[in-house]
């Protein structure tokens, strides 16, 4: 339903915008109906930028994003409202996603007036109650409250409800779990997974690999804005091929085994080379050499539904 075609985003940074920061480089992947894709990478890997481009908060420097076959760059004005009716985002900090001086009712009322002016008041109220219950909230505990009177987990669910009230088909969930406590995060995660049943597709952006594993059908591993590995979640986790993915997997704190003796790596300080493999400098593979720097390694399908962009790893 959503497809990213060779999307790149370049920011101008530095005092006079003289330097270029390539946040996203030639990213191509697609998301099917009712599918959860997790986008995994360290900070600075361009995960959030991809989410923002899909939500039309920034526009890609090159490449296109297609939603149901149509390029979203062409959507303007009235079309935009229709687009947002179907595509919504939820962000990391639930408190800064709500206007702190608006009560919950008012937020819903604005939605009612803006998006569903033809729906009667009673009908709207019934729909509202139903949606709140669907995300596991008691409407009486939520309505007539200010955002600060709700807990983080409640508010995050409230935001999911806000998105669901629209006829949302595609949800960008940007690190929505990271602010929550261990005891409540799993409930929000289960809620997201349940929504799949309604045909909702989710782009689940996270840096926590175990959360990604729990919820997603397919995973995209990003490094410095390039996709280094892409495929079915089970296959990537069972047999990570790219050295970066392997390093990430080795760094996950497991509950059933301790970290092995290889040292954790400190994040790369450089921008990554533009011509060749972005991971070249940190790459530990013995076989790395000129061929890595000559050109950006393309994504190659190793087994069905498992692609990797590395020219020297064992296949």
């Amino acid at each position: 339903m959503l497809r990213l075609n060779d999307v790149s985003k370049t920011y101008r940074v530095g005092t006079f915008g003289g330097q270029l920061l390539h946040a996203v480089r030639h990213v191509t992947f697609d998301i099917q109906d009712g599918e959860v894709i997790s986008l995994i990478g360290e900070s600075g890997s361009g995960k959030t930028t991809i989410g923002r481009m899909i939500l039309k908060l920034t526009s890609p420097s090159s490449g296109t994003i297609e939603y149901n076959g149509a390029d979203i760059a062409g959507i303007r004005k009235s079309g935009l409202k229709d687009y947002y009716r179907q595509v919504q985002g939820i962000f990391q900090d639930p408190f800064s996603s709500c206007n702190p001086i608006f009560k919950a009712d008012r937020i819903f009322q604005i939605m009612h007036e803006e998006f569903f002016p033809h729906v009667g008041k009673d009908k709207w109220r019934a729909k509202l109650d139903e949606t709140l219950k669907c995300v596991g909230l008691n409407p009486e505990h939520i309505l007539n409250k200010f955002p600060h009177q709700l807990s983080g987990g409640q508010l995050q669910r409230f935001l999911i409800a806000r998105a669901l009230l629209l006829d949302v088909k595609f949800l960008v969930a940007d690190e929505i779990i990271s602010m929550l406590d261990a005891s409540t995060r799993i409930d929000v995660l289960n809620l997201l997974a349940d929504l799949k049943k309604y045909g909702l597709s989710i782009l689940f952006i996270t840096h926590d690999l175990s959360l990604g594993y729990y919820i997603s059908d397919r995973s995209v591993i990003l490094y410095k804005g390039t996709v280094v590995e892409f495929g079915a979640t089970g296959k990537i986790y069972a047999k990570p091929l790219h050295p970066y993915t392997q390093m990430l997997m080795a760094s996950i704190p497991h509950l059933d085994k301790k970290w092995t003796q290889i040292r954790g790596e400190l994040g790369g300080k450089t921008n990554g080379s533009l011509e060749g493999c972005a991971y070249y400098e940190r790459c530990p593979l013995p076989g790395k050499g000129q061929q890595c720097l000559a050109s950006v390694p393309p994504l190659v399908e190793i087994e069905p539904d498992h692609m990797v962009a590395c020219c020297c790893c064992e296949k």
Partner: protein
Amino acid sequence: MSLTVENLTVYYQTLKGVVQALEDATFSLDDGEIMGLAGESGCGKTTLGTSLIQLSGRMRYIKGKLALDGQELPIWDNTAMNDFRYKKVSLIPQYAMSAMNPTRKIGMLTRELIEAKKVDFNQVLPELKRRLELVELPEKVLNMYPIELSGGMKQRMVMVLSTLLNPSLLIADEITSALDVSTQKAVMEMLGEFRDRKYVKSMMIITHDISVLYQIADSIMVMYAGQLSEKAAAETIIREPRHPYTKMLIAALPKIGVRYSEQVLSGIPGKPPLLLDPPAGCRFRERCPAAFGKCLQAPPFKEVQKDHFVACWKEFERHA
């Protein structure tokens, strides 16, 4: 015993009343022990950590006895604590990213800090350089402003700063929460190395992420709503937790190998009580599946097995 704490109770004075943030904490820390302190937000982890170093304006010391290396730790006396702070007890704060003065170069900042404790900076300098090397920071950072460093680099710089005078006790408050998995691993391993090299005698790592603690900590202490729930060796807490809260908390952690499509994990229903006027007795009572009449009284934090402390009436019965 590096640190012993007995019946430490610390409240917050607020406009609405007294918040009972830390109730009757009794525990001890061995020499060389890395203890992890885990719990949900608002359960008093940070209160316990900071009360060992400085009571901020609204914090009220109610009762309790503390001793560090056999010497009394006078946390109720702000001036007397000056002799302990930084030299004996040191802290890596929660927001280490913004812990350094942005208007000073890092070298200058370090010098001022060291000299404020009446220690000659030039004597410390060679050691400082050695430690910078250990955490893989170039020596030239001393000539840079904090803003020039990335988040992970700042974190490591603060680690070196906090431990420069070889404190007996280091409190590390949520130091890896903002870091990527790979950097998180590196930082945690450096903490372990600091202990192995005897830069720091014992350590208290505060975090909500139990799986990180399991990797590095010798023992884990779990708190709930201002009360201690359980303390035991890390292995024991993960494998054989006894307190119902710990059990549920560990069961709620997503791990590699568990997928929604195959096994649905469940969270802990309900939410922690407000500490402004907490219910009497065990504070986990309302969310606890095993609660019974006796839970109306607060359970003591008792050793049920060697080095395994639990505060739960059900567990006491089982071991009576």
